């Protein structure tokens, strides 16, 4: 009895010490109470070394849980991450409304330019409606090129289901060719690595060695677009994707498909310097083909023989152009500056009329969105250009201005 008592009391003392030690092993919680939620979160206990994701989403305002989900009070990794939205990517289209949505965030009204989610989810990049319509038309499953189906059902489109298709070619299309829309898993090899949803464009690609960069940006270099674009060719003959066999290095000679010639701006500027928000993210309407939404022309920036490019003067301090310039400060845009604008009214906020130049026709300065490089250019009007007013597509400008490769 005595021996037992002694043994058990010593063991009790030892286990009490063990409990003390266990408690000391608990991580010291780092709390933030974001101003938008007012609820305390402890994510930073483990993730304090993450950089701020962007200037416009400071962690002191948003916290982590508002966008990512998860359990704010848990200090155990599995429990804390068990309710994450979209895994590592809360902008995945399946959960984007819960993560990025809201009146004051990214699913508000078009008037205040906060309708990103409505626009992206109906865009050709997300629905793939154009490609699906073309293939189905080519193999006789629909009578014309009107978009009837998307990857998912939305706004008049039904969901494309390869299993329901009669033609084996269309079924093969469903198996082999659906890697490049915003809700798709990219192809397995490293150069195709990208996220889905908003992050497909706005975040750097996930890396293989877990050093993923926590970043949201509007400064998108052409390499971001080339995660999907310029990767190779689809063949309707064998309904397969044929990836390009080379690894493009030199942008002029290697990058674009060797079937066309390009002008200097097309291999010097980034895609985002010309292609507008509506072109890339849609305007909320379903289109049958990407050509219907792409409307940028050479004349948008350069004008024609008879007209200067359209401009607008920034007058409202809350103007969209100023907000865009704030997000990507390559240009010191101010109220009173005159910038170029497209014929749909989209501001080309990185292209400004240079003030005080005493020529009859103005000079323009462009700041590239990804690198901030400054270019100046003159309009067509008043130059020796020999264009035909009825032939304004890019291919006509290429006749003279394309660079020999």
């Amino acid at each position: 009895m005595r021996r037992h008592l002694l043994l058990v009391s010593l063991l009790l003392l030892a286990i009490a010490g063990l409990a003390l030690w266990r408690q000391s092993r608990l991580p010291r919680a780092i709390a933030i109470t974001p101003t938008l939620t007012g609820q305390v979160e402890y994510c930073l206990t483990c993730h304090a070394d993450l950089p701020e994701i962007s200037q416009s989403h400071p962690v002191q305002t948003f916290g982590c849980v508002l966008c990512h989900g998860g359990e704010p009070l848990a200090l155990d990794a599995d429990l804390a991450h068990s309710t994450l939205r979209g895994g590592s990517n809360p902008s995945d289209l399946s959960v984007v409304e819960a993560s990025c949505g809201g009146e004051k965030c990214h699913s508000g009204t078009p008037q205040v330019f906060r309708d990103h989610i409505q626009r992206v989810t109906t865009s050709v990049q997300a629905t793939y409606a154009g490609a699906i319509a073309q293939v189905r038309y080519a193999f006789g499953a629909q009578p014309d090129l009107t978009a009837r189906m998307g990857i998912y059902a939305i706004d008049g489109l039904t969901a494309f289901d390869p299993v329901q298709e009669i033609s084996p070619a269309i079924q093969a299309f469903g198996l082999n060719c659906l890697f490049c829309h915003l809700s798709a898993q990219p192809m397995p090899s490293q150069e195709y690595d990208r996220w889905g949803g908003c992050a497909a464009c706005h975040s750097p690609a996930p890396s293989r060695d877990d050093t993923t960069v926590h970043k949201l940006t509007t400064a998108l270099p052409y390499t971001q677009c080339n995660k999907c674009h310029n990767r190779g060719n689809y063949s309707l003959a064998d309904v397969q994707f044929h990836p390009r066999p080379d690894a493009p290095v030199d942008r002029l000679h290697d990058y674009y498909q060797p079937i066309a010639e390009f002008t200097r701006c097309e291999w010097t500027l980034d895609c985002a310097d010309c292609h507008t928000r509506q072109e890339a993210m849609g305007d909320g309407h379903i289109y049958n083909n990407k050509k219907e939404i792409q409307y940028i022309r050479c004349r948008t920036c350069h004008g024609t023989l008879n007209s200067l490019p359209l401009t607008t003067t920034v007058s409202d301090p809350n103007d969209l152009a100023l907000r865009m310039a704030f997000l990507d400060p390559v240009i010191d845009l101010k109220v009173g500056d005159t910038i170029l604008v497209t014929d749909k009214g989209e501001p080309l906020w990185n292209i400004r009329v240079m003030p005080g130049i005493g020529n009859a026709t103005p000079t323009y300065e462009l700041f590239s969105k990804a690198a901030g490089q400054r270019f100046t250019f003159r309009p067509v009007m008043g130059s020796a250009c020999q264009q035909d007013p009825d032939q304004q597509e890019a291919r006509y400008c290429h006749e003279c201005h394309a660079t020999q490769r």
Partner: protein
Amino acid sequence: MRPSFYQHLHPPTIPSAQARLRYTLGAGGMAVFLTLVVGLTGILVTFYYVPTPEQAAKSIQELTFLAPFGWLMRNLHYWSAQLLVLVVLLHLLRVVFTGAYLPPRRLNYLLGLSLLVICLFMDFTGYVLRWDEGVHWALVAGTNLVKSIPLIGPGLYTFLVGSSQPGATTLIRFYAWHLFGLTILLIGIGGWHLFRVRRDGGIAVPPPELRPDAARIPRSELVRREGLAMLWATLVLVGLSIAIPAPLAPSIQEAGTSASESLAPWFFLWVQELLKLGDPFTFGVLIPLGVLLLLALVPYFSPRRLSPVELGRWFPAGGRNIQILVGVLSGAILLLTLLALLALPH
């Protein structure tokens, strides 16, 4: 000199043969100790727990991760509760297999059986208070089972759930049951049960003239043994609490997750397995009640076969029919529990 309260708790001496661990397994006493631990730790966790659907799982997370030694208090509460159910079952089996239900102990046997039921409901209501995804479907299935009882089912359901489906009212009612309703019953019937032990003459023994061994141990020795047992039990409880944490899951989501991995709490797994066989009322209510009824009738089955001479040892010959009955029942319940566990996707 009139004996003090302490001296009332134990008789001055008890027969040495029946005080042996091999005879009683110390199960009854251990149940009392575990009840004290579960009650004390329960009060401690009540200081942090918030009984609303939005806050319940969150407050438990705060308790576990942020309050100093909160994880220890919660795990102690969890482990003492689960071990209590096991020890109470062990005590029931011991009482049945040693024939300690004979008169004058028949009432006490029934009191003990009621305590078992109260314990199970304590464990179930405590389980539900977590209000997280792990308990969601057990709560839905369990309350719907009540609804399946004819005549009184819907009324009983509303009484327990407080509304047409489990929600905030349910949580606060289960909280009231767990903290007050069942506690009052537990203390009342438990106190009566312990009183009856003394009143019925202590641990079941043969009459004095038939006892082979007349040795007795004094109160002080009994208390010493109980103290040692409590220390060992504390050691095991703290060890378990450090090594294996109580289950924790995210709060019940309104958007509803699938019930694919859902399980009843371990002591109701046999009922969950039964429910796979047919309609809820028969398999989920009638059969378990039937088992309870059979157990309750144990002291009344051919009582004259077992005589007081055979008391004080395991498996007396006169109680063979009871032993076989309870043995088969226990085996069946154990088997059903194992089947339920094996059916888990790995």
